């Protein structure tokens, strides 16, 4: 077994151990032990309630993240490439990023009801600004000499974008995607807590109301695990698409 993996396991053991001890003291009556939470997680996994909940939660999450990624990167590219688009779009996303989302939710519910649309909106509002702004910033900072190099060897406008601008911007675009996706997870859960309790948000709300704290923590735990797995997959995708990014860049 290699060392990084060993250290990762050790760090997990420390966190879960601390949780177990805090649960046994107990720090609060609302805090189950780690093993109680895991037992609740397995129970929900086996009786199927966890999977039905995720089928519900993943709908706005997947749709919202997909829209945010595709639209966010496209708009980000345009904003980064053209001053005109920058003036037009940047303020919208800066305001979106700064706005307290919880305050906007009642407004969204009034406009789009309590269904899927509102929830997708919440995910997008959370995820899109950071994707757009990161992409735009990265594109804007493409080294001029690289684009001049492309042009001097007669690259077309498209070739400059595809072979120089996007690969050069890809590390920052992907870090924007990672931030955007984690914000999207927050948005998905927030919408289920604030709009209508469905899916994982429903497990959390319902278990709390009947004081089944083990199930509540199990649901929270599972969503964190899912987010971590997803971010790791995203990293794999980055290295698959832009294998150079794993190698580190020249400093100058």
């Amino acid at each position, binding site marked *: 077994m290699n060392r990084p993996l060993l250290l990762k396991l050790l760090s997990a053991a420390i966190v879960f151990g601390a949780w177990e001890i805090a649960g046994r003291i107990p720090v609060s009556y609302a805090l189950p032990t780690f093993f109680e939470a895991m037992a609740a997680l397995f129970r929900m996994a086996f009786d199927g309630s966890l999977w039905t909940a995720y089928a519900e939660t993943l709908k706005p999450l997947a749709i919202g993240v997909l829209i945010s990624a595709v639209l966010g990167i496209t708009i980000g590219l345009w904003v980064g490439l053209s001053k005109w688009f920058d003036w037009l779009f940047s303020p919208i996303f800066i305001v979106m990023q700064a706005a307290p989302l919880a305050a906007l939710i009642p407004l969204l519910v009034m406009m789009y009801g309590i269904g899927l649309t509102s929830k997708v909106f919440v995910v997008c509002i959370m995820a899109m600004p950071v994707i757009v702004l990161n992409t735009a910033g990265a594109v804007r900072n493409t080294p001029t000499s690289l684009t001049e190099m492309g*042009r001097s*060897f007669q690259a077309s406008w498209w070739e400059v974008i595809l072979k120089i601008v996007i690969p050069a911007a890809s590390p920052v675009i992907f870090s924007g995607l990672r931030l955007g996706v984690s914000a999207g997870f927050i948005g998905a859960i927030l919408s289920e807590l604030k709009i209508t309790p469905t899916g994982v948000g429903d497990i959390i709300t319902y278990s709390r109301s009947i004081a089944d704290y083990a199930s509540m923590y199990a649901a929270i735990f599972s969503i964190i695990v899912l987010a971590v797995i997803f971010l790791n997959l995203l990293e794999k995708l980055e290295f698959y698409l832009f294998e150079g990014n794993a190698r580190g860049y020249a400093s100058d």
Partner: protein
Amino acid sequence: MAMPQTETVHETATTAAPDIAVSARNVSKNYGPVEALKDLSLEFPRGQLTSLLGPSGCGKTTLLKIIAGLLEPSGGDIQVDGKAVTGPGPDRAFVFQDFALLPWASVIRNVAFGLELRGINKSEREDIASRYIKDVGLAGFEHSFPHELSGGMRQRVGLARALSVDADVLLMDEPFSAVDEQTRRKFQEDLLALVANENKTFIFVTHSIEEAVYVSDQIAILLPRPSRVSDIIRPTGLREKDSTSIRRDPEYLDIVDEIWASLRSYVE
């Protein structure tokens, strides 16, 4: 102006009118109210190396980028082989001061990048690229990445990329200014061999007087505000000399001194 002795040698040297590969005719470039270049005319003989030398801010890089087609002149035009330049073309290749290598691409992909953009298929362009990688002395580094190379090796990659598209005119923008002194000297010697062996026209921007005199067939001295060609110097006896003895030659030393005398008042 100064330099009577080089002027006289110049007259005798150019009895056979040289073939002109590139000419700049009345080129002007304005950035808003700032005049970077004003009514500048200059001719670049085929198969020779012409340096553009001058204090910083004299517009030498601007002129080079206009010749490359990367910048549009505000007035006047550039002709390459009698055809007016409207943009970058296959007849010119550029070597960048900061190398401009793709950090995510291997040496061979970087060298072949110009050919890739011209739509040449992969096996053919990698054949050509590996030949030029060998020529510039980087055999064995085909699959290394730019960050694994020293500054000098990176510029060799930039040079191989420019050579591999086989353009008639090589435009070099202070190509050796970002490498260390010893590497620079080696580069200058290699450049002399390159000019002698390849039938290409070299246009070379530099701010080093010694470098310009060492490598050039013709030195155009540009003075700023507004930029103009103040003098053209053609060293005559240096090409026949061995590359290691040029720096001891009296003509070399005289020209270096004269250029410095004419430039010193423009240096803050």
